[in-house]
């Protein structure tokens, strides 16, 4: 390797490619040529550390080259060119909306919006993925994923206090019969490891895990998706950070070892019994808790001027990012190590967990050290930010990196990617009449892995720690119904128990629709997330959202085509709902090959995470029926189309059309319902999503231990809608609400002119009875419905 490096500037393209492969940098030919050109210009050869730094800084993980690069999208004869797909869709929505309550967007480790009354607090929110590590070592991968996103919240502004963790997972079907490659784990094994990892990290660090979801599809058999999120509270006057020339570089938290060199993932080939360091990342929640406690105390005393987390790329990325304007002078011999046999460049790029980098004024170091020692949190002073715009990294007398920051952060070449609309044949004919009875179909839907109870996962998480989880993941009379959104009262951060301001967090996720229509998938996901917040009693006019895209190889033009359409959906949806994107992340190359050489690309997967304020957490809503005699209403228009439905997975109805979302109508509907909820007219609300209306009504009934006598005839619907579509179709923008009997008149006044229809009433008898005018659709005992739904997933 050293011989090749000494002639780097004169290597032919083929040898450059071989060098890249041997070193594991994943730089493409253009990037290698650019690096070569730059060093030729400097008149010298690079060091290993410099090329490692370039590889990290220019990686997909750090620079998001695919999403933020130029794309040419072909849709038949139409061609649309994007210079920067991300800026022209996601960022454009936020800029267009220009919400005053967005305090920090797309500039820091997480997005921040205003929280509560008085303008004192900001709510930081971030979600990311840790997919590849979880495929190899599910427990460690999930733990370090959670640890990483918590550090993003600790590293936003001058540090936010985490108050909520979220988790959404996608796995292959647990009953999959497909033959797996030799070293691949079964979906059950991956799921168990991931759940245990999230549980152990979240529970040990003392942050409630209270929102998320589970999704099963064969497309995730070899590539599970693990989305982890975190929300935290930050004083508004602690959002701005700026490295001041002369500040010291202080690393706190964990020690540095040979963990995860070359990406968030790692190669099993590197790990054996002789490897003395921690080659596999296992999170250490207690170390991160120590860093958290130090940061919160030091932040409030103003002991540092900037902070960021060590994530992918380790010191290289964190110090490089903090010193992007000032430059940095780093002495690697000062780093606290787990292993003394580590190479200097490995110290620089190691991704050891639980480390935070602070920019500390010299005069404040003594006070900071006192807090660090009081909290038993390890630290080291690694150098300073000199202000000359140069990155100089040394180990003893040896130069490891000596590069201008402008080259590192501005030098990455990008190239145009082709994108093409996927051809999907749509059949919009009415769905075939089911062979079985509607009641039996409902039972099968309730037992489907994408619908059934998640209690065997949820109950492993501590969702009560910090004492602020008002809207719980399991709700209802028996504490086991499926909540639509978490509602958090963050008094553990604000320390103000007289202020009942809170916030809701929910998700929207519809990859099955994305297989047919990625544009509608994005719209449906935004709508679902917003609707879930509404069902919890949040003020959805103040919704802020996160986008997390996961996709297969972007080298496939159809994968890029899916991405373009979904990104356009994000733009249109965000603007229509007035919900700006405040942060996001993307993950590509989620594609593997099985034992028979068959490719397994994941379906385009877009997780929309949403948050909105809940003015008074004491008035938050839950999904379960509350009182016999209360009227039940269906809000929204039931539209035709079974495309992307769980029903179609059980029995192919022959119809794969996706019901298009009428965004204007949805926003108008939610505004009216929002007023009714605020006026205290609504006792329970639940969105219509996976499984359709029948599943929604069943969940409301058995969660409340109360039945319902319902006639769907008055419900607003498209012409020629079949009973199958009415009961099991998943058209968006619909929710079922239970109205307080004494407030029905006020409710009707507030929703006047909207498609909201009374469909029956809550009954004492534990039976769900549903008809459509003269046709009886089903009459089912609640205990039987619940028994089908309450499956043990693990």
């Amino acid at each position, binding site marked *: 390797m050293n011989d090749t490096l000494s002639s780097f500037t004169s290597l032919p393209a083929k040898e450059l490619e071989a060098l890249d492969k041997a070193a594991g940098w994943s730089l493409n030919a253009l990037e290698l040529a650019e690096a070569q050109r730059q060093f030729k210009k400097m008149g010298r050869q690079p060091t290993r550390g410099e090329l490692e730094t370039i590889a990290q800084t220019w990686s997909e993980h750090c620079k998001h080259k695919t999403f933020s690069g130029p794309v040419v999208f072909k849709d038949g004869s139409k061609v649309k060119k994007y210079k920067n797909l991300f800026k022209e869709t996601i960022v454009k929505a936020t800029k267009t909306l220009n919400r005053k309550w967005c305090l920090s967007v797309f500039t820091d480790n997480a997005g921040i919006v205003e929280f509560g009354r008085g303008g004192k607090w900001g709510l930081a929110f971030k979600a990311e993925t840790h997919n590849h590590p979880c495929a*190899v*070592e*599910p*427990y*460690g991968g999930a733990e370090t994923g959670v640890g990483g996103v918590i550090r993003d919240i600790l590293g936003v502004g001058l540090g936010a206090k985490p108050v909520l963790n979220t988790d959404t997972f996608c796995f292959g079907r647990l009953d999959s019969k497909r033959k797996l490659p030799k070293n691949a*784990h*079964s979906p*059950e*094994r991956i799921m*168990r*490891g991931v759940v245990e990892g999230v549980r152990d990290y979240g529970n040990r660090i003392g942050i409630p895990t209270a929102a998320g979801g589970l999704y099963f599809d064969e497309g995730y058999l070899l590539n599970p998706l693990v989305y982890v999120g975190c929300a935290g509270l930050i004083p508004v006057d602690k959002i701005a950070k700026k490295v001041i020339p002369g500040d010291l570089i202080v690393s706190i938290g964990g020690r540095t*070892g040979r*963990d995860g060199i070359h990406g968030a993932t790692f190669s*099993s080939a590197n*790990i*054996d*019994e*002789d*490897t*003395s*360091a*921690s*080659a*596999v*990342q*296992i*999170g*250490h*929640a*207690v170390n991160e808790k120590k860093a958290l406690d130090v940061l919160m105390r030091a932040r409030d005393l103003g002991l540092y001027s900037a902070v960021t987390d060590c994530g992918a790329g380790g010191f290289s990325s964190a110090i490089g990012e903090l010193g992007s304007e000032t430059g940095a002078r780093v002495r690697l011999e000062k780093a606290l190590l787990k292993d003394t046999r580590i190479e200097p460049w490995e110290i620089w790029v190691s991704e050891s967990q639980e480390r935070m980098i602070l920019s500390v004024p010299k005069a404040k170091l003594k006070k900071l050290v006192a807090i660090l020692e009081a909290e038993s949190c390890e630290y080291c002073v690694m150098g300073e930010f000199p202000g000359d715009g140069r990155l100089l990294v040394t180990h003893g007398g040896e130069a490891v990196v000596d590069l201008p920051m402008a080259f590192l952060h501005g030098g990455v070449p990008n190239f145009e990617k082709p994108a093409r609309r996927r051809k999907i044949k749509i059949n919009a004919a009415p769905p075939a009449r089911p062979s079985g009875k509607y009641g039996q179909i409902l039972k099968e839907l309730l037992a489907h892995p994408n619908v059934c109870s998640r209690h065997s996962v949820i109950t492993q998480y501590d969702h009560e720690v910090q004492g602020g989880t008002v809207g719980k993941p399991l709700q209802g009379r028996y504490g086991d119904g499926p909540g639509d959104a978490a509602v958090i009262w963050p008094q553990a951060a604000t320390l103000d128990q007289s202020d009942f301001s809170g916030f809701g967090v929910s998700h929207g996720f519809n990859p099955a629709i994305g297989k047919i229509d990625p544009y509608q998938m994005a719209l449906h996901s935004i709508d679902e997330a917003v609707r879930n917040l509404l069902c919890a009693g949040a003020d959805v006019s103040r919704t802020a959202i996160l986008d997390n895209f996961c996709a297969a190889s972007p080298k496939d033009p159809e994968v890029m085509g899916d991405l373009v359409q979904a990104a356009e959906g994000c733009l249109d949806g965000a603007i229509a709902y007035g919900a700006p994107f405040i942060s996001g992340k993307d993950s590509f190359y989620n594609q593997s090959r099985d034992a028979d050489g068959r490719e397994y690309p994941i379906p385009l997967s877009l997780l929309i995470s949403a948050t909105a304020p809940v003015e008074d957490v004491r008035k938050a809503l839950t999904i379960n029926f509350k009182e016999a005699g209360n009227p039940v209403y269906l809000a929204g228009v039931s539209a035709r189309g079974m495309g992307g439905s769980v029903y179609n997975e059980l029995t192919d109805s022959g119809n794969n059309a996706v019901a298009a979302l009428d965004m204007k109508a949805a926003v108008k509907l939610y505004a009216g319902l929002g007023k009714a909820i605020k006026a205290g007219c609504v006792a329970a609300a639940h969105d219509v999503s996976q499984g359709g209306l029948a599943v929604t009504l069943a969940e409301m009934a058995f969660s409340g231990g109360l039945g319902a006598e319902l006639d769907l005839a008055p419900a607003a619907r498209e012409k020629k809608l079949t009973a199958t579509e009415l009961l099991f179709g998943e058209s968006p923008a619909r929710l079922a609400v239970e109205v307080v009997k004494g407030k029905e008149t006020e409710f009707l006044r507030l929703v006047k002119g909207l498609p909201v229809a009374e469909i029956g009433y809550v009954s004492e008898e534990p039976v769900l009875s549903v008809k459509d005018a003269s046709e009886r659709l089903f009459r089912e005992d609640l205990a039987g419905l619940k028994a089908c739904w309450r499956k043990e997933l693990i």
Partner: protein
Amino acid sequence: MIIETWTKEKYAKNEEDGFVARMAHAGLKLERARVSRLYRVEGSFSRPDFDRLGKELLADSITEKYSLRPGANGFKGAWRVEVWLKDSVTDVVGESVKGAIADVLGKEPAVVRFGHAYYAACESEAKLKHAVVKTLVNEIVNKFKIEKI
């Protein structure tokens, strides 16, 4: 020195049922089962020191028992599966116990590693090994051995 702790039989049903169900998921039916925790403590401590660690630190005297002799929990006629994290892998529990031992004995051990021992009565070692690899260990991060007891 390896210190083994296990839950007293009358309190152990839940963890044993969990282990049996997990193995059943991998296609192995167990007749009987038991689960223990293992702490490998390396340091210049005397036997009474190790005894003190077992008694005062690692085992809860009401619900658990301990032994300085691995496999001495009375479970006979079965297989014993010992599972550890590889030495190259960060052992968070081991690190925490290391600190706790220093607090109890006033002297920090050189190394502490945490593992599990699973006792399984079943028809064959080959089937047990298959199930263990399929559901209990990840050979990227774990090492394990199976022995007849």
